[in-house]
């Protein structure tokens, strides 16, 4: 991973508690941000530092405008969601003004244990592929009832989490399986074996990466949010696509206003381009 230089913390807000800049472990380079593991207040409290580096491909004016607007929006949404009891990492600190030298902004959040749902689903799909190859079955035939239930349960919990989000009046803007974390319930369960077996799907769903989030009370925005998630399942995890209904079931259960949002979703689905109009 190319190194992003963390901002010089001391020059920004010297009176606020700072994450320790000497204690940074790069975790992940996302599309727009670099994620580091660090500590906050004490050396044993883990925290996630998210740095939005300047994007040199963009025009500098556009870049500053987007970096500033997005980090602020993310901070505002996290703050609101924590207050509303939605399962997201708590906000610990933020500096939204792009750094004068390198144009980056940063934000510190609570550390979330576990891994992205994407990883678990990918492992599950590999496992299924193995089963099918072993038994000479066609794609999708190797799913046993218990396996199916496990994934359905996970999808329902995802729907529940998204419902909570929308109830709070926040739109995520980039719902993919990479941005949904699966936090194991206990510390022991966290040590998940990297084996060939069927992976565990237990745990709480925690939504992360609110860089494209916004506050909105419109069904249109909610529906597009769900549509983006549906497409993410279809393109990244083709085997789970037919269970997407479960997400909507979970969504309905956790969010009262879901009826009109789901109705709008039907319209949004029709909007994708070049769709076959038959059937």
């Amino acid at each position: 991973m190319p190194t992003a230089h963390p901002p010089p913390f001391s020059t920004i807000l010297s009176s606020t508690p700072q994450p320790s800049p000497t204690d940074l472990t790069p975790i992940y380079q996302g599309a727009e941000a670099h994620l580091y593991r660090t500590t906050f207040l004490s050396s044993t409290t883990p925290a996630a530092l998210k740095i939005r580096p300047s994007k040199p491909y963009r025009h500098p004016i556009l870049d500053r405008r987007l970096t500033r607007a997005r980090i602020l929006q993310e901070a505002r949404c996290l703050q609101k969601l924590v207050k509303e009891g939605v399962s997201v990492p708590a906000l610990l600190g933020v500096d939204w003004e792009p750094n004068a030298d390198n144009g980056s902004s940063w934000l510190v959040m609570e550390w979330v244990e576990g891994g992205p749902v994407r990883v678990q689903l990918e492992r599950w799909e590999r496992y299924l592929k193995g089963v099918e190859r072993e038994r000479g079955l066609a794609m999708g035939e190797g799913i046993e009832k218990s396996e199916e239930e496990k994934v359905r349960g996970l999808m329902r919990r995802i729907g529940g989490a998204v419902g909570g989000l929308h109830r709070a009046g926040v739109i995520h803007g980039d719902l993919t399986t990479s941005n949904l974390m699966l936090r194991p319930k206990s510390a022991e369960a966290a040590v998940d074996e990297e084996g060939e077996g069927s992976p565990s799907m237990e745990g709480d769903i925690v939504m992360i990466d609110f860089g494209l989030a916004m506050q909105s009370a419109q069904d249109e925005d909610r529906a597009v949010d769900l549509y983006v998630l549906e497409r993410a399942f279809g393109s990244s995890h083709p085997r789970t696509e037919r269970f997407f209904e479960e997400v909507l079931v979970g969504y309905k259960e956790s969010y009262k206003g879901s009826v009109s949002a789901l109705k709008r979703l039907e319209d949004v689905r029709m909007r994708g381009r070049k769709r076959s109009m038959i059937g």
Partner: protein
Amino acid sequence: MIAIGLEGSANKLGVGIMLHPKDGSTPQVLANIRHTYVSPPGEGFLPKDTARHHRSWVVKLVKKALKDARVSVDDVDCICYTKGPGMGAPLQSVAVAARTLSLLWGKELVGVNHCVGHIEMGRLITGASNPVVLYVSGGNTQVIAYSSQRYRIFGETLDIAVGNCLDRFARTLHISNDPAPGYNIEQLAKKGKQLVDLPYTVKGMDCSLSGILAAIDGLAATYGLNGEQPDEEEDAPSEDTPVTDGISEDRKPTRADLCFSLQETVFSMLVEITERAMAHVGSKEVLIVGGVGCNERLQEMMGIMARDRGGSVHATDERFCIDNGIMIAQAGMLAYRTGFQTPLKESTCTQRFRTDDVFVQWRD
């Protein structure tokens, strides 16, 4: 094995001849010719006029392609044509030509998805093995990655295509459509300096462009820059008001500034959604295909992004980026070699044909 490809889903009519050597070595382009229907400034190309253009040129182009390739009709193994997506009338006229050749010569037909044609040609020319593909043209804007026998669409425009957005703005400014409106926008944008504020609409890996077009059309109208303009204004944008940092608020934007701002904004969105898809699937390679893929600014921006991720960008030039017959021959040949054929009675065409509808049997 030799395939002839016929493409005519929009205003370009292309005929290409592709040789796949029997020993499995690199396929060779034997002929790749194109004729473009150019509409007057301020106007788009209408389906009926475009279809008429294709009908009147297809015979000439096929004859010339065979001559250029120095092959006879007997050498040809299959006739590949664009089944869709695209404009109905132009597609139909080319499909009729393909069927006629098939019956006349007694050769098999292969119907090809236009988008898959772009992807396969891009892969062949650049040698990119498994890239994230940004397909940008007048009719399509998609971020695609391959997974289990399909080119899956990770992100796409929710309304109009990026090429359509640029072309329509060219129409607003009455910029010439020769050789292509997008090309002329690109040239004009090189003279632009000031960035005007435009909406920036990215939704995850999808994007929306119609609002941006409406906004910039509105700006053009406000500043009286739409419609035909005297030539001297276009070439000498305000020498007396020097712009050093591009933030001089009160300077009235020029036509060049608008083109510049439009490109900067929409290309940033495209690079962003591509980068998001790369992060999501864990790929370091990008391939840009489609007519807008010729744009050097887009290629440059994509290159910077890919470099920062430790990857690289692959792009082709106008011979293969802009719609052409050879890509149809290439994708058709790949399918034909796995045993795929389109029987005469199924040799229809369709305006709606999604990239992920095609079962890609020729890749693992």
